[in-house]
């Protein structure tokens, strides 16, 4: 069996990639994908910890299933928002859409 730290390293790398996408990309869909990557990194951690935890509990797996379900709903909502944004502004660049300030 692989040691726990391998999973954590993969999870950390995945999270960092997602964070980079959220902070650095301007395209709304790419920001969304970044968020999804971060979510998956977290669920990976959860499953890994659940597997290695003594006593064989399934809490981590259960929470992961929840996260997947919620993420699916979230993606539906987010894509709908991005579509509306494009219809109204003819752009999906989040740097341009900054009217909600001060």
């Amino acid at each position, binding site marked *: 069996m692989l040691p726990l730290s391998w999973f954590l390293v993969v999870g950390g790398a995945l999270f960092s990639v997602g*964070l980079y996408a959220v902070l650095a990309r301007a395209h709304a869909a790419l920001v969304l994908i970044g968020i999804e990557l971060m979510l998956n990194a977290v669920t990976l951690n959860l499953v890994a910890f659940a597997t290695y935890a003594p006593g064989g509990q399934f809490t981590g797996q259960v929470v992961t299933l929840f996260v997947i379900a919620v993420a699916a709903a979230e993606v539906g909502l987010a894509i709908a928002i991005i579509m509306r944004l494009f219809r109204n502004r003819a752009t999906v660049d989040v*740097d341009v859409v900054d009217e909600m*300030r001060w």
Partner: protein
Amino acid sequence: MLSVGLESTWLLVALPLFAFTLIVFAGRWLPRQGAFLGVLATGVGLALLALLAAAFQRGGEGAFSVDWLRWAGFAIPLGMHVDALALVMLGIVTSVSFLVQVYSLGYMASEPRYGWFFAVVSLFAAAMLGLVLADNFLVLYVTWELVGLCSYLLIGYWYERPAAAAAAKKAFITTRVGDLGLLIGILLLFRATDTFSMSETFDLAQRGDIAQPLLTVIALLVLAGAVGKSAQFPLHVWLPDAMEGPTPVSALIHAATMVAAGVYLVARALPLFEAAPLALFVVAILGLVSALLAGALAVVERDMKRVLAYSTISQLGFMFMGLGSLGYSGAVFHLFTHAYFKALLFLAAGSVLHSLATQDIAQMGGLLRRMPWTGATFLIGALALAGVPPLSGFWSKDDVLHAVLTYQSPAFGLLALVATALTGLYVARVVLLAFFGGPRSEAAQHAHESPAILIGPLVVLAVGAAFAGLLAPLGVVRALLDPGHPYTFDPGLAVLSTLAAVVGLGIGWAVYGARLLDAGAIASRFGSLYGLATNKFYLDALYQAMVDRVVLTLARLVAFFDRRVVNDMGVDGAGVVTTAAGERLRYLETGKLYHYALLMVLGVVGITLIVLVIG
């Protein structure tokens, strides 16, 4: 045979209270604005009182209470204590307020706020009855303030008149000064004894369980309340001004009942004063000063009602003198007779006022012929006041003087007799100027007798004023109060006091009746004294100056603090800081998505670092 126990005494309070509520909330739909309800309540109360007196005869005094407030191991009872003193006071309050309300049916008939008058008078009756029944200091204080409130409302009944509004304020604030003392006294007493109950407190005081300097301070503070309410020197200034109220109010509240509350309080708390001889002496001295001072002022006053007001202060002074000389039953007996003859005098004065529309005795004259009923009843009241035997005032005043002469020094007794003579003098002056001689104004010329609804109560009260005193030698009211010390008739004293009264009356007759002496000449002969008296011994001016200088300066200071510190810095400060901070911080909201995301990440990193470092 209908049998009522003393436990039903609370009905006596509930009836007028109910009348008050009904008149205030439903008066506008009732005939005559519901005024009859007030009369009905006290009328039924009077009948109830007779049954209660019978119950008292059968079973003696009783105490009843329910818990009013209760918390861990401590309760404040809402209770009543029906003893002889309470019963006598109940009799005075119920009977006088019944007669005064009947009188007011006629007297106040043309007033637009007719119902309001009867509502407040009913509230007053309820509060006053509650006051004399209260068996603990907290209930006493509440009802004490309630009667003060009613007094304020009724003095200011004609609040459109600036003089009435000012007089109401003056009365309320002046008595407030004394009430503050009473409140502090009650709280100190509670600290010392852990109970508000009167009887328990008095037991403790008599056993010497309260340390001596504290006990004297408490007694003096309680006395302060009594002095304010009973308009004794130095807080007497409000009572003459209170005559701005309707005359029936002057008769009920400012002559017969509420101003007697101070006397009642000292009489009730006499065990406290007995244990504090210094405070007891102060009671007597204040009484003497008030009796002399107000007597002198009554001699120079021209307004009929104000003469009577000063006379009330003077007579209440006699009661304080009696209490200060441990003449408990004599003082309360004087309270009892005084209630009737003074209410009578006020109502008769109201009848005169009703006809003449002036209160200036210089504008009257010869009224006895034109208003025979009013004149005759006034004369009976006046002679009772002067202490002419065998009218009521004679018996009760002798009772008081008996205590004073046996307990106090001869000089004190002599001054008390001088006060008696002064009473005779101002009585003679007001009677002779108003009712005898020739009319001195157009209005007096055309004076006419008042209607029967005004005369009826006058006649009833005149009977009381004439014969109430005879109850003492017959052993009725007086014996009830203090069975241990029955009324003793002292012929020597009777001669002495009658002589003093006759001297006063004689001087008055010589000056104002027979014109043997000229009033103006006497006034200029004693110019400085006359000047002092006409200026009310400058006490009103002194208080006014004190209010202007001290109180208003202090008030301005407080107002400044309130405006600049509390308002500008406190209340406005919070708003100003918030707006200014928002004005600067709003630029953090850039609208850029990655700014928010970055700040979130930095926040998480920061918190993680803090947790790692701290532990």
